[in-house]
């Protein structure tokens, strides 16, 4: 705990010129929120400053915030950096809207190359000045960005081998029955674990509307 507080102070000291918010999350992690134009500067300072040395890129995470409340912009991109000398992780959060691009950090960390490609693949967030921004995980010629919340779980097209044509073909998805969401929210415990929720609103459970029919 003490270590993290010192780290927080250090980060605030190093990143004096940058508009930012640094905080310790309830899960005991250091979280730094910066604007996207300050991102590269912040990461290069964190990487090179002798007191910090966040020299290992751990992950780049895209999040689609569309269903969550309290977020102005659609996407968050979270960079997780590790300092092998301080033996700790930290995360840097950048918010972007749809069709907005983010500066690429491939010149700071070579490993960011594939991680950024994955974020582009999954969320369609373009990275500015990325040397080779192609899809990473999805099929050749895939359309859409599957981890966006408006992309259905079953996707849009399915693939099979056609005996007649003699090759693999793509078709629109045909489901034998509608996709079922098993949202078994219960009135007793589901409410208790969400104390912030308004009581009157929470009492209306799925299926309640049928009671008076």
């Amino acid at each position, binding site marked *: 705990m003490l270590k993290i507080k010192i780290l927080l102070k250090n980060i605030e000291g190093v990143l004096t010129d940058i508009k930012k918010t640094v905080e310790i999350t309830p899960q005991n992690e250091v979280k730094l929120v910066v604007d996207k134009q300050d991102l590269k500067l912040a990461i290069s300072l964190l990487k090179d400053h002798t007191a910090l040395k966040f020299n290992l890129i*751990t992950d780049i995470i895209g999040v689609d915030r569309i269903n969550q409340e309290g977020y102005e912009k659609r996407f968050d991109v979270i960079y997780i950096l590790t300092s092998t000398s301080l033996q700790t992780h930290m995360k840097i959060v950048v918010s972007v809207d749809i069709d907005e691009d983010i500066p690429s950090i491939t010149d700071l960390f070579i490993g960011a190359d594939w991680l950024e490609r994955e974020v582009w693949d999954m969320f369609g967030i373009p990275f500015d000045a990325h040397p080779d921004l192609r899809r990473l995980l999805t099929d050749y010629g895939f359309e859409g960005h599957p981890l966006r919340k408006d992309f259905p779980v079953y996707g849009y097209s399915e693939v099979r081998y056609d005996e007649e044509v003699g090759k693999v073909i793509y078709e629109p998805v045909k489901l034998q029955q509608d996709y079922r969401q098993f949202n078994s929210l219960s009135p007793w415990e*589901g409410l208790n674990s969400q104390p912030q*929720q308004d009581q009157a609103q929470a009492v209306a459970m799925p299926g309640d509307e049928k009671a008076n029919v």
Partner: protein
Amino acid sequence: MSTEIKNFRLNFGPQHPAAHGVLRLIVELDGERIERSEPHIGLLHRGSEKLMEDKAYNQNVPFFERMDYVSAINQPYAYVLAVEKLAGIQVPKRGQYLRMLVSELSRIGSHSLSMGALANDVGAITPLILGLEIRERISEFCERASGARMHGNYIRPGGVSFDMKQELLDDILTYMDDLTNDIQACDDLLSENRIFKQRTVDIGVISAKQALSYGFTGPNLRACGVEWDIRKSQPYDAYEEIDFNIAVSSDGDTYARYAVRLFEIRETIKIVRQLIKNMPAGRHKTDDEKFTNPKRKKMQSSMESLIHHFKLFSEGYHVPAGEVYESVEAPKGEFGVYVIADGTNKPYRVKVKTTSVPHLSALNELTKGHMLSDIPAILGSIDIVFGESDR
């Protein structure tokens, strides 16, 4: 007259016995020398991250076992730690020790297989058979503990699914002696073998600085001389109480990666012995029935337990809103999970930090200038599994 000289282009994979899975590697060759190699991954992409957003927290555990299927037990460990941290679940000491025990056993299985596979990739068949034999024994222990040989679904939020009997612990302890001999046999066959050394020393060299920049973790990073092990730096569960060393080599080549793994198996044997010797008594999972299923016997008499059981397996449990990154030291490197909870019974987003992707992304750097025959050796030494890199 002038003729255009074209480089020989080889499509290494997706079906290739040495690609360790479905790697498509496009290799440009000048004779047998590699000019450029470009890995294409994602042929095993199953959309686990998307599926996990649609399943309750306790239903997501098996997805992780199917990522790195070579060391299945280690992957859900990270996810379970993240869920426990978000939900505030306290795990009893015995549960922690059992989790560490199975994950260390799984590490032995993974390392012995990867050593055998490396030997097979450079042409020696026997170490692979030895490695598979070791893995088979480990699988049998997994079966006795959880009921399934590979995907045991053993580690769950709140502890482990079943307690281990003292008899099983004793058998594991006895096996550690046999294992020491088997590892010694592998060591004798390979470590000082001149052909093996010719094939691995100075092949696929990467410097510590580059490795960090690529995001290497685990044995591959330690082989470059960076002393970095999550179990030491950010100890989870009860790793603080265990005494072990981590292997570091400064060469950063294929042989160093092999040697680090070999050393790690021996250290892991040490850890397993300590864990069994110090195994605390008590429950193997938390008593909080909101997170773990109640005993069958209790369900037959207690109404509340029955409700808990039904709720747990239909709705799951609600995890308070929050975001957390948790990582464990998997056999192949740092395996992390970023979980975003929004207060419902399903995670809002789960991001898996894989161990293989950074290693794969450095493949061009590692193979450039080497011969075609070095590709299998390098692939074998960086120890990749495509179920994990493609998710």
